[in-house]
Each structure stands twice: as structure tokens, then as C-alpha cells.
């Protein structure tokens, strides 16, 4: 058990106490909120499916491996080890996929190695950008995101470089 295991339960206890104090009908309220879940998921399913299909084809066609090899000299020059290329490339597209790669890195290099620690920090400072962007705007009329995705990608890349640096020191 670590300290972080206690945080959410403690927050929940505080929330229930506060609801009691404010005389909120917790059951009715919870049901009202939970009702929205199925509709939300039905609405975003096609967006999730189309992204996962594209990512699956990219992987099985060997394009991601090829890109990882092609880009590894550039990544190396920026201080990013070759072992992390696949993670860095796939992270913007798939959450479950990148967690799979992370677990792979843990078993291959050991969870306390430099590579693994870098990978952890990279997971924290990057996000499944394409997924988040499509899902977030899926229920609006927006077609053009302009510079949102390039800026997010640049920040993630800077974060990745920083992560590799910081993990060397700390």
C-alpha cells in the first residue's frame, strides 16, 4: 500500500460528508449523473474505433517500426534513447497501446532502470493527443483545430527531452 492509494478514498469520504452537510440526496444525484455515461460512450464510439483502426494498421504494416528506425538518430541527438522511440511515436495515438509498451519496457529493462523511469515521466508529460482532440470536439460543430495539435505535439516533445534529462539527474 502506498500513500497515493489513500488519496481518492479520502476525497470520496470528504465528498459524502459534505453532501450530508449540504443535505444533498446522494443516491438520486449519483443516478442522475451516471445516466449520462451510456449516451456519452455511444456518441464517442465511432471516433475511438476509427483511431484504433488506423493505429492497428500502422503497426501491422510495419510503418511505426520503420518510422522508429528512421527517427532514432534524430531522437538520439535530442537525448532520447532508441529504446523509447516506439513509445514516443505511439503515445499521441493510443492510451492502452502506450501502456502496453510501458509494461513491455518494465519487463525488458526492469522497472527501476533509467529507461523505465524516463518512460514513466514521458507517460506523465504526454497525452493521447489525437484521441483527446477527436473525442473532445466530437460533440461540437468544430472541424478545424488550427494550431492545437502541433502545439500539443511540440510541448510533448520538449517534455520528452526534459524527461530524459531530468531522470539522469534525479
Amino acid at each position: 500500500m502506498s500513500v497515493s492509494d489513500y488519496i481518492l478514498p479520502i476525497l470520496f469520504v470528504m465528498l459524502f460528508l459534505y453532501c450530508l452537510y449540504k443535505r444533498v440526496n446522494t443516491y438520486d444525484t449519483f443516478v442522475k449523473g451516471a445516466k449520462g455515461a451510456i449516451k456519452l460512450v455511444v456518441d464517442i464510439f465511432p471516433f475511438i474505433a476509427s483511431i484504433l483502426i488506423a493505429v492497428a494498421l500502422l503497426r501491422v504494416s510495419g510503418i511505426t517500426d520503420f518510422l522508429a528506425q528512421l527517427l532514432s538518430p534524430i531522437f538520439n541527438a535530442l537525448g532520447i534513447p532508441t529504446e523509447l522511440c516506439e513509445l514516443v511515436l505511439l503515445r499521441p495515438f493510443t492510451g492502452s497501446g502506450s501502456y502496453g509498451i510501458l509494461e513491455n519496457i518494465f519487463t525488458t529493462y526492469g522497472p527501476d532502470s533509467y529507461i523505465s523511469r524516463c518512460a514513466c515521466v514521458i507517460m506523465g508529460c504526454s497525452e493521447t493527443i489525437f484521441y483527446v482532440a477527436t473525442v473532445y470536439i466530437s460533440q461540437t460543430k468544430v472541424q478545424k483545430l488550427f494550431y492545437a495539435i502541433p502545439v500539443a505535439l511540440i510541448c510533448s516533445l520538449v517534455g520528452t527531452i526534459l524527461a530524459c534529462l531530468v531522470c539522469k539527474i534525479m
Partner: protein
Amino acid sequence: MNIFWFVMMFLSILILLITNPSAVLSEMIGASADALSLCIELCAVYAVWLGIMEMVEASGLGEKLAKLLRPLIKKIFKVDDGETQKIIALNVSANMLGLGNAATPMGIRAMQKLDDGSGKANFAMIMLIVINATSIQLLPTTVIGLRASAGSQNPADIIIPTLLVTFCTTVLGILLVHTIHKIIHKKARAKK
């Protein structure tokens, strides 16, 4: 997104046509099935978090949290509407706790509130996406959990490096969006 998706799909299918044509359809259906099971899992997660969030809002805690973060949100997002500020506050707080899945429903609602129907993303929408992508992580819960189960001696020792790096990327993201917005604004005015 349209061009992007087209390129990804077209190139992959073209290569597979030569190397492994029988994999194309089975991979697509497999990925779609993955999406379906992910959605079922997400539905369970969303039901819990949407229920909790409804309690947070009904009890007035959401309003309090928003009040706390309001000056910051007003400055960063340039949003004046109280209701929208509240939803953004909930989205950002969930993200800080590493609860990406709890943040998503709030993010979708915030986007709907911010949508002006023009078909183009406005400043606040772009900012919300960038902030979500770079989000400061106070507690990377999922990663620590995975690392602990992989047998790490000290799974929590990535908290400080993560905090440090995400703080830098978030500041960078906010600055970049503000700068680009200013440049575009200036150009638009110069044209007039």
C-alpha cells in the same frame, strides 16, 4: 484530421496489400472490437465519475473549486461565463490527479459550452486541448500503480520528475497558444 486519417489508412493498406493482404480486414475488425471493449470499460468508468461529479456539483463543491481556480482560468482561457469556468475547473483538476478518464466527460461538456457554432475552434477550445495534453500531473496514479506491480523498489520516485517536467510543458503550452493567438490576431487586424 480528415487528411491525417486518410494518409495513415491509405499508406498502411497500400503496404499491407503487398506484404500481408489477408491481415487488412481482420486487423480492422480486431481494432474495432478493441474500441468496443474499451468503450464498455469507459462506460463503467464514466458512470462512476459522472455520478461523483454530479454530487460534486449538486453539493456546491464544484462552484467552490471553480471560485478557487477562477482567476487562473479567466486569465488562461479568457472565459467569462461562470458555468463554463466551473466545468473547465473540474476538467483541469481531474487531469492534475492523473484521472484522464474522469476528465474526459467534463472536457466534452466544456467544449460544447465553448462551441460558437462557427465550425472553427476558438482560442479557449485550443487552450483546453493543449492544457489537457500537457497537463500538470500532481499524482500520476496509473503509472505508479503499473510500476509497483512490475516490482519496483520505489515506484513513487517519479512523482517529482513528472511534476517538474509537466510544469514546464504546461507553461510552455500556455505561452505558445497565447503567442500564436496574438500573432494571428495582429495579422487579421493588419488585413482589415
